[in-house]
Protein backbone atom coordinates (compact mmCIF):
# COMPACT_ATOMS: atom_id res chain seq x y z
CA UNK A 1 0.00 0.00 0.00
CA UNK A 2 1.24 3.49 -0.86
CA UNK A 3 2.61 5.45 2.06
CA UNK A 4 3.33 9.17 2.08
CA UNK A 5 5.08 9.41 5.45
CA UNK A 6 8.13 11.60 4.88
CA UNK A 7 6.99 12.27 1.30
CA UNK A 8 4.84 15.35 1.53
CA UNK A 9 6.21 16.71 -1.73
CA UNK A 10 5.34 13.52 -3.63
CA UNK A 11 1.78 13.62 -2.34
CA UNK A 12 1.08 16.99 -3.99
CA UNK A 13 0.58 15.45 -7.43
CA UNK A 14 -2.09 13.09 -6.08
CA UNK A 15 -4.14 16.01 -4.77
CA UNK A 16 -3.92 18.77 -7.40
CA UNK A 17 -4.05 18.45 -11.21
CA UNK A 18 -1.14 16.17 -12.05
CA UNK A 19 2.00 18.02 -13.10
CA UNK A 20 0.49 21.44 -12.41
CA UNK A 21 2.51 22.32 -9.28
CA UNK A 22 4.95 25.20 -9.74
CA UNK A 23 7.13 25.47 -6.67
CA UNK A 24 7.98 28.88 -5.21
CA UNK A 25 5.43 30.69 -7.34
CA UNK A 26 3.07 32.35 -4.87
CA UNK A 27 0.34 34.79 -5.81
CA UNK A 28 2.39 36.05 -8.75
CA UNK A 29 5.66 36.40 -6.81
CA UNK A 30 8.62 34.05 -7.11
CA UNK A 31 10.40 33.05 -3.92
CA UNK A 32 14.12 32.31 -3.56
CA UNK A 33 14.38 28.54 -4.28
CA UNK A 34 17.15 28.12 -1.71
CA UNK A 35 15.13 29.55 1.16
CA UNK A 36 13.97 26.94 3.72
CA UNK A 37 13.57 24.24 1.09
CA UNK A 38 11.72 21.73 3.25
CA UNK A 39 8.83 24.19 3.43
CA UNK A 40 7.38 23.51 0.00
CA UNK A 41 5.15 26.32 -1.21
CA UNK A 42 3.84 27.17 -4.64
CA UNK A 43 0.89 27.27 -6.99
CA UNK A 44 -0.98 24.54 -8.84
CA UNK A 45 -4.36 23.99 -10.41
CA UNK A 46 -7.23 21.84 -9.21
CA UNK A 47 -9.90 21.18 -11.84
CA UNK A 48 -8.22 24.01 -13.71
CA UNK A 49 -8.53 26.57 -10.92
CA UNK A 50 -5.39 28.15 -9.42
CA UNK A 51 -4.67 27.09 -5.84
CA UNK A 52 -1.86 27.78 -3.36
CA UNK A 53 -0.16 24.62 -2.09
CA UNK A 54 1.81 24.36 1.16
CA UNK A 55 3.58 21.12 2.01
CA UNK A 56 6.49 19.88 4.05
CA UNK A 57 9.34 17.75 2.64
CA UNK A 58 10.87 15.59 5.36
CA UNK A 59 13.74 14.59 3.10
CA UNK A 60 15.38 18.01 3.13
CA UNK A 61 17.33 19.60 5.97
CA UNK A 62 17.98 23.31 6.42
CA UNK A 63 21.74 24.01 6.12
CA UNK A 64 21.33 27.24 8.09
CA UNK A 65 19.60 25.66 11.09
CA UNK A 66 20.79 22.24 12.15
CA UNK A 67 17.67 21.38 14.15
CA UNK A 68 15.58 21.44 10.98
CA UNK A 69 15.66 17.91 9.59
CA UNK A 70 13.44 14.87 9.04
CA UNK A 71 10.39 17.06 8.61
CA UNK A 72 10.80 19.13 11.78
CA UNK A 73 9.70 22.67 11.08
CA UNK A 74 11.93 25.50 12.22
CA UNK A 75 11.94 29.30 12.40
CA UNK A 76 12.34 29.90 8.68
CA UNK A 77 9.89 27.19 7.66
CA UNK A 78 6.97 28.57 9.67
CA UNK A 79 7.61 32.13 8.51
CA UNK A 80 7.95 30.99 4.88
CA UNK A 81 4.59 29.23 5.05
CA UNK A 82 3.04 32.30 6.67
CA UNK A 83 4.55 34.44 3.92
CA UNK A 84 2.98 32.21 1.26
CA UNK A 85 -0.42 32.65 2.90
CA UNK A 86 -0.07 36.44 3.06
CA UNK A 87 0.99 36.55 -0.61
CA UNK A 88 -2.14 34.57 -1.43
CA UNK A 89 -4.36 37.00 0.49
CA UNK A 90 -2.68 39.95 -1.22
CA UNK A 91 -3.02 38.48 -4.71
CA UNK A 92 -6.79 38.11 -4.35
CA UNK A 93 -7.38 41.18 -2.21
CA UNK A 94 -9.75 42.81 -4.69
CA UNK A 95 -11.46 39.66 -5.92
CA UNK A 96 -15.00 38.71 -4.93
CA UNK A 97 -15.53 35.99 -2.34
CA UNK A 98 -16.25 33.29 -4.93
CA UNK A 99 -12.87 33.91 -6.57
CA UNK A 100 -10.61 33.84 -3.53
CA UNK A 101 -8.17 31.08 -4.40
CA UNK A 102 -8.14 27.94 -2.26
CA UNK A 103 -5.15 26.99 -0.13
CA UNK A 104 -4.32 23.31 0.08
CA UNK A 105 -2.16 22.07 2.96
CA UNK A 106 -0.41 18.75 2.44
CA UNK A 107 0.27 17.62 5.99
CA UNK A 108 3.18 15.45 7.03
CA UNK A 109 5.22 16.85 9.90
CA UNK A 110 6.52 15.38 13.15
CA UNK A 111 6.53 18.78 14.87
CA UNK A 112 8.58 21.87 15.54
CA UNK A 113 12.36 22.00 15.95
CA UNK A 114 13.49 21.72 19.57
CA UNK A 115 16.67 23.78 19.77
CA UNK A 116 18.38 26.48 21.76
CA UNK A 117 18.70 28.97 18.90
CA UNK A 118 15.04 28.34 18.12
CA UNK A 119 14.14 29.34 21.68
CA UNK A 120 16.47 32.36 21.75
CA UNK A 121 14.83 33.84 18.63
CA UNK A 122 11.38 32.57 19.64
CA UNK A 123 10.13 29.80 17.37
CA UNK A 124 6.67 30.27 18.87
CA UNK A 125 6.38 33.40 16.72
CA UNK A 126 7.01 31.42 13.56
CA UNK A 127 4.30 28.86 14.37
CA UNK A 128 2.01 31.58 15.65
CA UNK A 129 2.48 33.74 12.56
CA UNK A 130 1.52 30.88 10.27
CA UNK A 131 -1.63 30.16 12.28
CA UNK A 132 -2.72 33.79 12.35
CA UNK A 133 -2.08 34.09 8.60
CA UNK A 134 -4.17 30.99 7.96
CA UNK A 135 -6.99 32.17 10.21
CA UNK A 136 -6.98 35.53 8.42
CA UNK A 137 -7.07 33.89 4.98
CA UNK A 138 -9.91 31.61 6.07
CA UNK A 139 -11.88 34.55 7.43
CA UNK A 140 -11.13 36.56 4.28
CA UNK A 141 -12.92 33.86 2.27
CA UNK A 142 -10.11 31.66 0.97
CA UNK A 143 -11.18 28.00 1.26
CA UNK A 144 -8.43 26.14 3.15
CA UNK A 145 -8.35 22.35 3.06
CA UNK A 146 -5.74 20.30 4.92
CA UNK A 147 -5.04 16.83 3.58
CA UNK A 148 -3.21 14.74 6.18
CA UNK A 149 -1.12 12.22 4.26
CA UNK A 150 1.42 11.27 6.94
CA UNK A 151 2.23 12.67 10.36
CA UNK A 152 0.12 15.40 11.92
CA UNK A 153 1.77 15.75 15.26
CA UNK A 154 1.37 18.24 18.08
CA UNK A 155 2.67 21.76 17.38
CA UNK A 156 3.40 20.76 13.78
CA UNK A 157 -0.27 19.95 13.20
CA UNK A 158 -1.39 23.08 15.04
CA UNK A 159 0.45 25.39 12.71
CA UNK A 160 0.19 23.28 9.54
CA UNK A 161 -3.36 21.93 9.43
CA UNK A 162 -5.54 22.86 12.37
CA UNK A 163 -6.38 26.37 11.10
CA UNK A 164 -7.94 24.94 7.91
CA UNK A 165 -11.64 25.16 7.10
CA UNK A 166 -11.73 21.40 6.67
CA UNK A 167 -9.27 18.65 7.57
CA UNK A 168 -9.22 15.38 5.62
CA UNK A 169 -6.98 12.50 6.63
CA UNK A 170 -5.97 9.28 4.93
CA UNK A 171 -7.07 6.38 7.14
CA UNK A 172 -4.70 4.62 9.54
CA UNK A 173 -3.75 1.90 6.98
CA UNK A 174 -1.74 4.51 5.09
CA UNK A 175 0.55 4.97 8.07
CA UNK A 176 -1.14 8.25 8.97
CA UNK A 177 -0.33 9.43 12.48
CA UNK A 178 -2.30 12.05 14.34
CA UNK A 179 -1.40 12.79 17.94
CA UNK A 180 0.33 15.00 20.47
CA UNK A 181 2.47 12.22 21.91
CA UNK A 182 2.34 8.44 21.55
CA UNK A 183 0.87 6.61 24.56
CA UNK A 184 4.29 5.42 25.76
CA UNK A 185 5.40 9.04 25.95
CA UNK A 186 2.26 10.11 27.80
CA UNK A 187 2.73 7.20 30.23
CA UNK A 188 6.33 8.18 30.88
CA UNK A 189 5.67 11.89 31.44
CA UNK A 190 2.47 11.55 33.47
CA UNK A 191 3.68 8.39 35.28
CA UNK A 192 0.37 6.71 34.54
CA UNK A 193 0.56 2.99 33.83
CA UNK A 194 0.67 2.32 30.09
CA UNK A 195 -1.70 -0.67 30.39
CA UNK A 196 -4.28 1.54 32.07
CA UNK A 197 -3.87 4.20 29.37
CA UNK A 198 -4.27 1.62 26.62
CA UNK A 199 -7.43 0.30 28.22
CA UNK A 200 -8.90 3.78 28.73
CA UNK A 201 -8.05 4.90 25.20
CA UNK A 202 -10.43 2.30 23.76
CA UNK A 203 -13.46 4.10 25.11
CA UNK A 204 -12.19 7.68 25.14
CA UNK A 205 -10.74 9.61 22.18
CA UNK A 206 -9.44 12.46 24.32
CA UNK A 207 -5.76 11.47 24.55
CA UNK A 208 -4.81 8.47 22.39
CA UNK A 209 -3.18 8.51 18.93
CA UNK A 210 -4.99 7.87 15.70
CA UNK A 211 -7.12 9.31 12.94
CA UNK A 212 -10.35 7.77 14.25
CA UNK A 213 -9.89 9.27 17.72
CA UNK A 214 -9.42 12.71 16.17
CA UNK A 215 -12.45 12.09 13.98
CA UNK A 216 -14.57 11.40 17.08
CA UNK A 217 -13.32 14.62 18.67
CA UNK A 218 -14.13 16.56 15.51
CA UNK A 219 -10.44 17.31 14.87
CA UNK A 220 -10.58 15.49 11.54
CA UNK A 221 -13.61 16.32 9.40
CA UNK A 222 -13.45 13.39 6.99
CA UNK A 223 -11.47 10.15 6.71
CA UNK A 224 -10.34 9.28 3.20
CA UNK A 225 -10.06 5.56 2.40
CA UNK A 226 -8.17 5.64 -0.90
CA UNK A 227 -5.49 7.74 -2.56
CA UNK A 228 -7.69 8.19 -5.61
CA UNK A 229 -10.37 9.80 -3.45
CA UNK A 230 -8.11 12.61 -2.24
CA UNK A 231 -8.43 14.85 -5.31
CA UNK A 232 -12.24 14.67 -5.72
CA UNK A 233 -12.87 14.97 -1.97
CA UNK A 234 -10.60 18.01 -1.61
CA UNK A 235 -12.42 19.60 -4.54
CA UNK A 236 -15.83 18.75 -3.08
CA UNK A 237 -14.84 20.28 0.26
CA UNK A 238 -13.68 23.48 -1.44
CA UNK A 239 -17.08 23.79 -3.12
CA UNK A 240 -18.87 23.18 0.18
CA UNK A 241 -16.69 25.72 2.03
CA UNK A 242 -17.43 28.32 -0.67
CA UNK A 243 -21.14 27.68 -0.32
CA UNK A 244 -21.00 28.15 3.47
CA UNK A 245 -18.89 31.29 3.27
CA UNK A 246 -21.15 32.79 0.61
CA UNK A 247 -23.97 32.33 3.12
CA UNK A 248 -21.88 34.00 5.84
CA UNK A 249 -21.69 30.76 7.87
CA UNK A 250 -18.15 31.22 9.11
CA UNK A 251 -18.83 29.27 12.30
CA UNK A 252 -19.56 26.19 10.15
CA UNK A 253 -15.98 26.00 8.92
CA UNK A 254 -12.66 26.08 10.77
CA UNK A 255 -11.77 25.23 14.37
CA UNK A 256 -15.10 26.22 15.93
CA UNK A 257 -17.00 23.99 13.48
CA UNK A 258 -14.76 21.10 14.47
CA UNK A 259 -15.59 21.68 18.13
CA UNK A 260 -19.27 21.52 17.15
CA UNK A 261 -18.66 18.27 15.19
CA UNK A 262 -16.85 16.83 18.19
CA UNK A 263 -19.91 17.56 20.32
CA UNK A 264 -22.20 15.94 17.73
CA UNK A 265 -19.96 12.89 17.51
CA UNK A 266 -19.98 12.51 21.29
CA UNK A 267 -16.26 13.12 21.74
CA UNK A 268 -16.45 16.48 23.49
CA UNK A 269 -19.20 16.21 26.03
CA UNK A 270 -17.31 18.26 28.61
CA UNK A 271 -16.82 21.11 26.16
CA UNK A 272 -20.56 21.06 25.46
CA UNK A 273 -21.30 21.50 29.18
CA UNK A 274 -18.73 24.28 29.50
CA UNK A 275 -20.26 26.21 26.60
CA UNK A 276 -23.77 25.87 27.98
CA UNK A 277 -22.87 26.88 31.53
CA UNK A 278 -20.68 29.79 30.50
CA UNK A 279 -23.43 31.16 28.28
CA UNK A 280 -25.85 30.95 31.20
CA UNK A 281 -23.53 32.58 33.70
CA UNK A 282 -22.49 35.28 31.25
CA UNK A 283 -26.10 36.24 30.64
CA UNK A 284 -26.75 36.41 34.38
CA UNK A 285 -23.72 38.62 35.02
CA UNK A 286 -24.09 40.77 31.92
CA UNK A 287 -26.10 43.68 33.29
CA UNK A 288 -23.93 44.16 36.36
CA UNK A 289 -20.83 43.90 34.15
CA UNK A 290 -21.76 46.32 31.38
CA UNK A 291 -24.49 48.22 33.15
CA UNK A 292 -28.07 48.43 31.90
CA UNK A 293 -29.18 49.57 28.46
CA UNK A 294 -29.79 53.12 29.61
CA UNK A 295 -26.93 53.95 31.91
CA UNK A 296 -24.20 52.52 29.67
CA UNK A 297 -20.92 51.26 31.02
CA UNK A 298 -19.79 53.18 34.07
CA UNK A 299 -16.67 51.92 35.79
Amino acid at each position, binding site marked *: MINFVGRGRDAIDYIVDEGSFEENLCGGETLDPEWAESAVVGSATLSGETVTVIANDAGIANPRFRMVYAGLMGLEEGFKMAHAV*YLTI*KADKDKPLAEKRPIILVVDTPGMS*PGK*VEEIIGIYK*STGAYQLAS*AEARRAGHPIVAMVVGRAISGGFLCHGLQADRILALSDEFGTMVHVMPLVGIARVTKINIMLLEELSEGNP*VFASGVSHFYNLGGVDEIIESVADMRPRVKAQIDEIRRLKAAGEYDKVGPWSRLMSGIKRGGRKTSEKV*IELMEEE*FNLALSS*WLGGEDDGFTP
Partner: protein
Amino acid sequence: MDDRWNLLQNQPFSRLNARERAYAICNPESFTELLGPRLKLTSPHLPPMGQTPQFDDGVVVGLGTVGKAPAVVVSQESKFLGGGVGEAHGTKMVMAIRLALRGQEILESRSKSSESRGRVAVVISFDTGGVRLQEANAGLLAHSEVMDAFQAARGKVPIIGIVGGTVGCFGGMGFVAASVDVLIMSDVGRLGLTGPGVIEEVVGTEEFDAANRALVWRTTGGRHRFITRDADFIVEDTMKAFREKVAEVASWPIEKIASKRIIGTGEMVLEQMRLVDLAANDRIQDSWDLWRQFGNEDIEYLWDSNVSEFEANARRWPRGRVGDND
Protein backbone atom coordinates in the same frame (compact mmCIF):
# COMPACT_ATOMS: atom_id res chain seq x y z
CA MET B 1 -12.38 49.51 51.27
CA ASP B 2 -11.63 46.06 50.00
CA ASP B 3 -8.98 44.80 52.44
CA ARG B 4 -8.33 41.55 50.62
CA TRP B 5 -7.72 43.40 47.37
CA ASN B 6 -5.36 45.85 49.09
CA LEU B 7 -3.38 43.05 50.71
CA LEU B 8 -2.95 41.24 47.42
CA GLN B 9 -1.58 44.28 45.58
CA ASN B 10 1.74 44.19 47.44
CA GLN B 11 2.21 40.43 47.11
CA PRO B 12 4.61 38.91 44.58
CA PHE B 13 2.50 38.07 41.54
CA SER B 14 4.38 34.79 41.11
CA ARG B 15 3.33 33.52 44.56
CA LEU B 16 -0.39 34.15 44.13
CA ASN B 17 -2.79 31.54 42.84
CA ALA B 18 -4.79 31.93 39.66
CA ARG B 19 -7.95 33.11 41.40
CA GLU B 20 -6.13 35.74 43.46
CA ARG B 21 -4.46 37.04 40.31
CA ALA B 22 -7.77 37.27 38.42
CA TYR B 23 -9.46 39.00 41.34
CA ALA B 24 -6.65 41.48 42.00
CA ILE B 25 -5.93 42.38 38.37
CA CYS B 26 -9.41 43.95 38.25
CA ASN B 27 -10.62 47.03 40.09
CA PRO B 28 -11.66 46.36 43.71
CA GLU B 29 -14.83 44.28 44.05
CA SER B 30 -15.44 44.20 40.30
CA PHE B 31 -14.56 40.58 39.54
CA THR B 32 -17.27 37.94 38.99
CA GLU B 33 -16.13 34.43 38.17
CA LEU B 34 -17.89 32.48 35.43
CA LEU B 35 -18.23 28.72 35.82
CA GLY B 36 -16.41 28.88 39.13
CA PRO B 37 -15.75 26.06 41.62
CA ARG B 38 -19.30 26.38 42.98
CA LEU B 39 -20.58 24.57 39.87
CA LYS B 40 -18.02 21.78 40.33
CA LEU B 41 -17.44 21.21 36.66
CA THR B 42 -14.49 18.85 36.66
CA SER B 43 -12.67 16.84 34.04
CA PRO B 44 -14.25 13.39 33.75
CA HIS B 45 -11.07 12.09 32.11
CA LEU B 46 -8.79 12.41 35.13
CA PRO B 47 -10.35 10.17 37.83
CA PRO B 48 -10.09 6.96 35.75
CA MET B 49 -6.36 7.74 35.44
CA GLY B 50 -6.05 8.11 39.19
CA GLN B 51 -5.72 11.91 39.03
CA THR B 52 -7.72 14.16 41.31
CA PRO B 53 -9.63 16.74 39.28
CA GLN B 54 -10.12 20.36 40.32
CA PHE B 55 -13.40 22.28 40.35
CA ASP B 56 -12.15 24.96 37.97
CA ASP B 57 -10.07 22.60 35.76
CA GLY B 58 -7.02 24.76 36.34
CA VAL B 59 -8.26 28.03 34.90
CA VAL B 60 -10.21 30.93 36.38
CA VAL B 61 -12.39 32.92 33.99
CA GLY B 62 -14.48 35.92 34.87
CA LEU B 63 -15.80 39.40 34.19
CA GLY B 64 -14.49 42.54 35.78
CA THR B 65 -13.31 46.07 35.23
CA VAL B 66 -9.70 46.97 34.54
CA GLY B 67 -9.08 50.68 34.98
CA LYS B 68 -11.87 52.12 32.86
CA ALA B 69 -12.43 49.09 30.65
CA PRO B 70 -14.81 46.19 31.10
CA ALA B 71 -12.63 43.09 30.94
CA VAL B 72 -12.84 39.35 30.52
CA VAL B 73 -10.06 37.78 32.58
CA VAL B 74 -8.50 34.34 32.08
CA SER B 75 -5.99 33.12 34.67
CA GLN B 76 -4.24 29.75 34.48
CA GLU B 77 -3.30 27.79 37.61
CA SER B 78 0.11 26.17 37.25
CA LYS B 79 -0.20 24.25 40.50
CA PHE B 80 -2.85 22.04 38.91
CA LEU B 81 -1.18 19.65 36.45
CA GLY B 82 1.34 22.32 35.46
CA GLY B 83 -1.37 24.59 34.09
CA GLY B 84 -1.93 22.09 31.28
CA VAL B 85 -4.76 22.77 28.86
CA GLY B 86 -7.35 20.01 28.97
CA GLU B 87 -10.83 19.80 27.46
CA ALA B 88 -12.77 22.00 29.95
CA HIS B 89 -9.82 24.35 30.55
CA GLY B 90 -9.41 24.92 26.82
CA THR B 91 -13.10 25.48 26.15
CA LYS B 92 -13.28 27.97 29.02
CA MET B 93 -10.50 29.99 27.35
CA VAL B 94 -12.17 29.90 23.95
CA MET B 95 -15.52 30.91 25.40
CA ALA B 96 -13.91 33.76 27.34
CA ILE B 97 -12.71 35.38 24.11
CA ARG B 98 -15.99 34.76 22.30
CA LEU B 99 -17.95 36.25 25.20
CA ALA B 100 -15.66 39.30 25.26
CA LEU B 101 -16.51 39.84 21.60
CA ARG B 102 -20.20 39.51 22.38
CA GLY B 103 -19.86 42.02 25.22
CA GLN B 104 -18.21 44.46 22.84
CA GLU B 105 -20.99 43.98 20.28
CA ILE B 106 -23.56 44.74 22.98
CA LEU B 107 -21.71 47.94 23.91
CA GLU B 108 -21.52 48.98 20.27
CA SER B 109 -25.21 48.38 19.74
CA ARG B 110 -26.02 50.97 22.39
CA SER B 111 -26.72 54.45 21.23
CA LYS B 112 -24.11 56.24 23.37
CA SER B 113 -21.07 57.77 21.74
CA SER B 114 -18.12 55.45 21.42
CA GLU B 115 -16.15 57.33 24.09
CA SER B 116 -18.65 56.85 26.87
CA ARG B 117 -19.25 53.20 25.95
CA GLY B 118 -15.77 51.99 26.83
CA ARG B 119 -14.21 49.00 25.12
CA VAL B 120 -14.04 45.43 26.34
CA ALA B 121 -10.53 44.01 26.83
CA VAL B 122 -9.35 40.44 27.31
CA VAL B 123 -6.63 39.85 29.91
CA ILE B 124 -4.93 36.45 29.95
CA SER B 125 -2.49 35.40 32.66
CA PHE B 126 -0.53 32.49 31.19
CA ASP B 127 0.98 29.96 33.59
CA THR B 128 1.16 26.71 31.67
CA GLY B 129 3.29 24.11 29.95
CA GLY B 130 0.77 23.88 27.09
CA VAL B 131 -1.29 20.80 26.28
CA ARG B 132 -2.33 18.62 29.26
CA LEU B 133 -1.11 15.19 28.20
CA GLN B 134 -3.92 13.35 30.00
CA GLU B 135 -6.33 15.09 27.60
CA ALA B 136 -3.81 15.75 24.86
CA ASN B 137 -6.03 15.64 21.78
CA ALA B 138 -8.76 17.88 23.18
CA GLY B 139 -6.09 20.23 24.54
CA LEU B 140 -4.43 20.46 21.14
CA LEU B 141 -7.72 21.26 19.40
CA ALA B 142 -8.49 23.92 22.02
CA HIS B 143 -5.27 25.71 21.08
CA SER B 144 -6.46 25.99 17.47
CA GLU B 145 -9.84 27.28 18.67
CA VAL B 146 -8.16 29.95 20.82
CA MET B 147 -5.99 31.10 17.90
CA ASP B 148 -9.06 31.36 15.69
CA ALA B 149 -10.89 33.36 18.37
CA PHE B 150 -7.87 35.69 18.61
CA GLN B 151 -8.09 36.37 14.90
CA ALA B 152 -11.82 37.03 15.20
CA ALA B 153 -11.06 39.56 17.96
CA ARG B 154 -8.59 41.55 15.82
CA GLY B 155 -9.40 45.22 15.68
CA LYS B 156 -12.42 44.75 17.96
CA VAL B 157 -11.28 43.54 21.34
CA PRO B 158 -7.66 43.97 22.49
CA ILE B 159 -5.97 40.97 24.05
CA ILE B 160 -3.44 41.70 26.78
CA GLY B 161 -1.18 38.84 27.90
CA ILE B 162 0.69 38.43 31.18
CA VAL B 163 3.52 35.98 31.82
CA GLY B 164 4.65 36.13 35.43
CA GLY B 165 3.90 32.78 37.03
CA THR B 166 6.27 30.10 38.20
CA VAL B 167 5.79 27.78 35.21
CA GLY B 168 5.79 30.55 32.61
CA CYS B 169 4.29 29.85 29.22
CA PHE B 170 5.45 26.94 27.09
CA GLY B 171 4.31 24.46 24.49
CA GLY B 172 1.41 25.49 22.28
CA MET B 173 0.52 28.28 24.70
CA GLY B 174 3.84 29.87 23.70
CA PHE B 175 2.46 30.83 20.31
CA VAL B 176 -0.85 31.84 21.85
CA ALA B 177 1.10 34.31 24.03
CA ALA B 178 3.02 35.48 20.95
CA SER B 179 -0.30 36.25 19.26
CA VAL B 180 -1.70 38.65 21.85
CA ASP B 181 -1.68 42.39 21.15
CA VAL B 182 0.40 43.44 24.15
CA LEU B 183 2.52 41.15 26.33
CA ILE B 184 3.65 42.05 29.85
CA MET B 185 6.28 39.94 31.60
CA SER B 186 8.19 39.99 34.86
CA ASP B 187 11.65 38.69 35.67
CA VAL B 188 10.06 35.50 36.96
CA GLY B 189 8.13 34.88 33.75
CA ARG B 190 9.52 32.66 31.03
CA LEU B 191 8.21 32.22 27.52
CA GLY B 192 9.12 29.59 24.94
CA LEU B 193 7.91 26.68 22.85
CA THR B 194 10.06 23.74 23.89
CA GLY B 195 10.86 23.65 27.60
CA PRO B 196 14.52 23.38 28.66
CA GLY B 197 14.10 19.84 29.99
CA VAL B 198 12.68 18.63 26.68
CA ILE B 199 15.48 20.21 24.64
CA GLU B 200 18.05 18.60 26.90
CA GLU B 201 16.35 15.24 26.62
CA VAL B 202 15.79 15.30 22.85
CA VAL B 203 18.99 17.02 21.69
CA GLY B 204 21.44 16.59 24.56
CA THR B 205 23.02 18.41 27.49
CA GLU B 206 25.62 19.99 25.21
CA GLU B 207 22.75 21.74 23.35
CA PHE B 208 20.96 22.82 26.52
CA ASP B 209 21.76 22.20 30.16
CA ALA B 210 18.34 22.44 31.79
CA ALA B 211 19.88 22.43 35.27
CA ASN B 212 21.67 25.70 34.52
CA ARG B 213 19.09 28.15 35.83
CA ALA B 214 20.89 31.25 34.62
CA LEU B 215 20.97 29.79 31.10
CA VAL B 216 17.28 28.94 31.27
CA TRP B 217 16.35 32.47 32.34
CA ARG B 218 18.53 34.30 29.86
CA THR B 219 17.15 32.13 27.02
CA THR B 220 13.43 32.41 27.80
CA GLY B 221 13.09 34.93 30.64
CA GLY B 222 11.36 38.30 30.66
CA ARG B 223 14.52 40.35 30.18
CA HIS B 224 15.50 38.53 27.01
CA ARG B 225 11.96 38.67 25.64
CA PHE B 226 11.90 42.41 26.37
CA ILE B 227 15.17 42.88 24.42
CA THR B 228 13.79 41.01 21.38
CA ARG B 229 10.48 42.91 21.74
CA ASP B 230 8.44 39.75 22.21
CA ALA B 231 7.46 41.30 25.54
CA ASP B 232 6.31 44.91 25.33
CA PHE B 233 6.83 45.60 29.01
CA ILE B 234 8.84 44.20 31.86
CA VAL B 235 7.48 44.89 35.34
CA GLU B 236 8.36 44.07 38.95
CA ASP B 237 7.01 40.81 40.32
CA THR B 238 4.15 42.40 42.25
CA MET B 239 0.42 42.18 41.73
CA LYS B 240 0.23 45.96 41.72
CA ALA B 241 2.84 46.38 38.97
CA PHE B 242 0.95 44.03 36.67
CA ARG B 243 -2.43 45.56 37.47
CA GLU B 244 -1.28 49.12 36.82
CA LYS B 245 0.31 48.18 33.50
CA VAL B 246 -2.74 46.24 32.37
CA ALA B 247 -5.03 49.14 33.27
CA GLU B 248 -2.78 51.58 31.41
CA VAL B 249 -2.72 49.46 28.25
CA ALA B 250 -6.48 48.82 28.37
CA SER B 251 -7.04 52.59 28.26
CA TRP B 252 -5.14 53.03 24.97
CA PRO B 253 -6.96 53.44 21.65
CA ILE B 254 -7.24 50.11 19.87
CA GLU B 255 -4.93 51.27 17.05
CA LYS B 256 -2.13 51.90 19.52
CA ILE B 257 -2.67 48.49 21.12
CA ALA B 258 -2.60 46.77 17.72
CA SER B 259 0.67 48.53 16.83
CA LYS B 260 2.40 46.55 19.58
CA ARG B 261 1.73 43.20 17.92
CA ILE B 262 4.79 41.25 16.77
CA ILE B 263 3.06 38.85 14.36
CA GLY B 264 -0.22 38.85 12.50
CA THR B 265 0.53 40.73 9.27
CA GLY B 266 2.63 40.01 6.18
CA GLU B 267 4.95 42.92 7.02
CA MET B 268 5.58 41.57 10.51
CA VAL B 269 6.57 38.21 9.03
CA LEU B 270 9.20 39.91 6.86
CA GLU B 271 10.40 41.86 9.89
CA GLN B 272 10.72 38.72 12.02
CA MET B 273 12.64 37.00 9.23
CA ARG B 274 15.33 39.66 9.62
CA LEU B 275 15.66 38.69 13.28
CA VAL B 276 15.86 35.01 12.30
CA ASP B 277 18.68 35.85 9.86
CA LEU B 278 20.82 37.02 12.76
CA ALA B 279 20.78 33.51 14.19
CA ALA B 280 21.41 31.47 11.03
CA ASN B 281 24.51 29.31 10.58
CA ASP B 282 25.18 29.10 14.33
CA ARG B 283 26.04 32.80 14.42
CA ILE B 284 24.67 33.05 17.93
CA GLN B 285 25.24 30.55 20.73
CA ASP B 286 23.61 32.45 23.55
CA SER B 287 20.93 35.10 23.98
CA TRP B 288 23.64 37.50 25.16
CA ASP B 289 25.29 37.29 21.71
CA LEU B 290 22.09 38.84 20.41
CA TRP B 291 22.03 41.48 23.17
CA ARG B 292 25.53 42.55 22.11
CA GLN B 293 24.43 42.86 18.48
CA PHE B 294 21.76 45.32 19.57
CA GLY B 295 24.42 47.49 21.21
CA ASN B 296 24.25 46.34 24.82
CA GLU B 297 27.80 46.53 26.11
CA ASP B 298 27.74 46.02 29.87
CA ILE B 299 25.61 42.91 29.89
CA GLU B 300 26.49 41.81 33.43
CA TYR B 301 25.25 45.17 34.69
CA LEU B 302 22.02 44.89 32.72
CA TRP B 303 21.44 41.37 34.00
CA ASP B 304 22.02 42.31 37.64
CA SER B 305 20.28 45.70 37.67
CA ASN B 306 16.78 46.15 38.99
CA VAL B 307 13.84 46.13 36.60
CA SER B 308 13.51 49.89 36.15
CA GLU B 309 17.24 50.34 35.52
CA PHE B 310 17.16 47.46 33.09
CA GLU B 311 14.14 48.89 31.28
CA ALA B 312 15.77 52.31 31.03
CA ASN B 313 19.13 51.08 29.78
CA ALA B 314 18.43 47.98 27.71
CA ARG B 315 18.91 48.43 23.97
CA ARG B 316 16.25 46.45 22.20
CA TRP B 317 16.00 44.91 18.75
CA PRO B 318 15.46 47.95 16.49
CA ARG B 319 12.61 46.15 14.73
CA GLY B 320 12.89 48.48 11.78
CA ARG B 321 9.51 50.12 11.85
CA VAL B 322 8.86 53.79 12.40
CA GLY B 323 7.57 54.64 15.83
CA ASP B 324 8.57 51.37 17.44
CA ASN B 325 11.68 52.53 19.20
CA ASP B 326 9.92 54.12 22.13
